[in-house]
């Protein structure tokens, strides 16, 4: 069996086209699925990403050499056809399709199959071999529908606002924050943001993504005038002195991990909203089925359990060790 893509110490590698996908060590040419820090790293000779992923990457990585492509456009690299297809994970996120002499591989990056109202919705891509993530690859993960989630968050915020209490909501700066902004009801009260989130907001507004008005939290901001506001903060900011200025406050996390009561309680936040930018159990299984692939490579998550499950379903499934498993801090979970 041919291996169009292989797994090397640098990351996923295409020997025929001589390029890498989401590498974690410096290589000459890196195709990047999306801008999260565990996929998009510094030090590559040249980058290729989707047009909508590029602005955030440029902001984070600085001066880089980068080609951008539209979803679906086919580029030939050393005779290998590559194209980017929506992964539904965050704006600009892509599954990368690699085709050569009739063999078709797809590297999923991170993905989710439900429409989050922000990212370009996931599109299944037919292939022979599929490299899938498995962040939530256990049947105990089943996401709450987006409209119910929005109701839960708005309800929590509105009650707090009525009591003059700040709603301190922790989320990842890229993707989750903007998804939340589009899901909440901005008529409840003002929305304040941490700088890491506001930077990303500014870039996304710049690329034409509509977001409600937000106010950056600065030292001289009059907090009394913003009682009851929704405050979006990164997870690290929530536990820092930065967050202590908002008093009284109710705190919450928005993450797929909030599905587990133990994790929710350990965070010692008042609320946990089960909102993930990764596919849940059914999402993963559906996505894999729709690729039509026989060979499945499982990365990034509950790899051994999920690949055993896939093998029992008749797939030729293997675990691929990646460095994503490190606590790189940001993956939109």
């Amino acid at each position, binding site marked *: 069996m041919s291996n169009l893509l292989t797994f090397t110490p640098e990351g996923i590698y295409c020997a025929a086209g001589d390029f890498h996908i989401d590498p974690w060590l410096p290589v000459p040419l890196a195709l990047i699925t999306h801008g999260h820090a565990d996929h998009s790293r510094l030090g590559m000779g040249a980058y290729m990403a989707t047009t909508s992923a590029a602005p955030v990457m440029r902001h984070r990585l600085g001066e880089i050499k980068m080609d951008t492509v539209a979803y679906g456009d086919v580029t030939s690299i050393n005779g290998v056809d590559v194209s980017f297809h929506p992964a539904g994970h965050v704006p600009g996120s892509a599954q990368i399709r690699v085709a050569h002499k009739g063999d078709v591989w797809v590297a999923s990056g991170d993905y989710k199959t439900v429409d989050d109202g922000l990212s370009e919705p996931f599109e299944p891509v037919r292939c022979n071999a599929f490299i899938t993530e498995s962040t939530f690859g256990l049947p105990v993960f089943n996401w709450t529908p987006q409209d119910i989630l929005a109701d839960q968050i708005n309800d929590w915020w509105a009650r707090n606002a009525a009591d003059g209490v700040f709603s301190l909501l922790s989320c990842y700066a890229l993707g989750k924050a903007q998804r939340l902004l589009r899901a909440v009801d901005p008529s409840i009260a003002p929305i304040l943001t941490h700088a890491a989130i506001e930077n990303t907001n500014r870039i996304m507004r710049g690329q034409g993504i509509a977001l409600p008005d937000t106010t950056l939290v600065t030292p001289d901001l009059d907090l009394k005038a913003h009682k009851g506001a929704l405050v979006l903060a990164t997870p690290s900011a929530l536990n820092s002195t930065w967050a202590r200025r908002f008093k009284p406050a109710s705190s919450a996390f928005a993450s797929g*991990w909030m599905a587990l009561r133990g994790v929710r309680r350990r965070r010692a936040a*008042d609320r946990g909203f089960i909102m993930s930018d990764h596919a849940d159990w059914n999402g993963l299984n559906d996505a894999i089925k729709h690729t039509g692939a026989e060979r499945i490579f499982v990365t990034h998550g509950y790899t051994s359990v999920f690949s055993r499950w896939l093998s029992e379903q008749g797939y030729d499934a293997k675990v691929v060790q990646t460095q994503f498993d490190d606590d790189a801090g940001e993956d939109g979970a």
Partner: protein
Amino acid sequence: MKNFAALFTALDQTTKTSLKVAAMAEYFRTASDADKLWCVALFSGRRPKRVITTKLLREWAAQKAGLPLWLFEECYPIVGDLAETINLFLPPAEEHKERSLSNWIKELKHLSTLDEEGRKSGILAAWNTLHRTERFLFIKLLTGGFRIGVSQKLMTRALAQATGQDEAVLTHKLMGNWTPDTTTWVDLIETDDPAADLSRPYPFYLAHGVENLDQLGPTSDWFIDRKWDGIRGQFILRQGEHHLWSRGEDLMTDRFPELAKLRDFLPDGTVIDGEILAFQDEKPMSFNALQKRIGRKTVPKKLLAQTPVILMAYDLLEIDGKDIRHETLEKRRNLLANILKNSPIEAPLRLSSEVIGTTWDDFAKERARSRDLHAEGLMLKRRDSPYRAGRRKGDWWKWKIDPLTVDAVMIYAQAGSGRRANLFTDFTFAVKNGNDLVPFTKAYSGLTDEEFRKITTWVKRNTLQRFGPVRSVSAEHVFEIAFEGIQASPRHKSGIALRFPRMLRWRHDKPMDEINTLDDLKDMLRTYG
């Protein structure tokens, strides 16, 4: 079940005590009497008996979900809670039928009378009619593992708010071995009938560890006696019947049959707070000796002869049937001494004698003798203090001896459960024996959340081998392990077992080759075992 699930969610969704109490009080104002009674029972640890083995529940959950059992078993350690795993594993219910909490518990009792097939169809039907949170609670009841993150004290406070009764009165009412089957809401909570249950104990007064001796004032303000190393107990003699309660509100009367003799020596209407001690030749034996008696509901004659127990009396709470807890400690002790002065040597009862001294230094010297006397330290009690309820600061302090400690290296790690799922919190430690490492204890408390997070990251990156949920890690990190006692244990490879082991400090400063040896532990066993 809907309003009980809402209560559970409200409790689960806040870390603020005042909101928890308000949510419970609201439930006690609005729920039916039968539901309220069960709620009080559940929140005070009176759980219904387990209806079915967890093995069968897991199998049925996997069948219902149409997924293999091994996949369930993989999920369980990650979720960390069996009922939650089952609940998340199952598909959503297809219909909904509202039944009250007490009604569901009735259903559980009915199920327990059926054969396995009957239980299975009953449980699957229940799973298919309950909403998510309701189903989680139902499974918790099924597995007999219902525990909630609310102390009995907070529940009692809520009950006080809802009923307008005094908190201490309610605490008293809730003690004893009632269950929802033996009483009603009206009898238990609303009826004022002090004679209803002669066995009813007073809430124990518990002391905090002393913080600052300098702030205690002159030693003459304090009555000081030993903190004996046994089991705290409350002995009750009323209308010719005697009862012995543990601090955890367990009735221990039958476990210590020799104390029945006290009925012949004590006047009726007496309640004594004391310590159960294994006692021989007018000296307490070590806690290890008493341990053989703990957990045995019936005691063989031989053991009774080998490890006889006595009640070491600390305090008198009731005399001639009258509650004297409001009197000063000094007065209560005088009355106690008076009752005990005529009791003969064969009575299994002694007065905990006052430790005499003038300066705090004198008492520090006395405290240093504790381990030799099989005591845990000293108790400092203000001479004019009443006997209070629960753990209070100010009038009583315990001045414990420092724990025994060894430096050991971590060799195995296991993820915690519940609040600590996804964190490595359960560790196995080893000492040196020549060139080998010998595991000798587990410990899972004593570190901060921040330290647990750090060690978790380290464990993930330094795993040598996995054995199910357990990982062996490279022997690198040294911890100071504190413990209260040590005893010989042929069941363990090291030959020893520790009492209350915990991590005192993460010794970043200590290299692996400076840890303690098995010989050090054996020395400790000879000295303190």
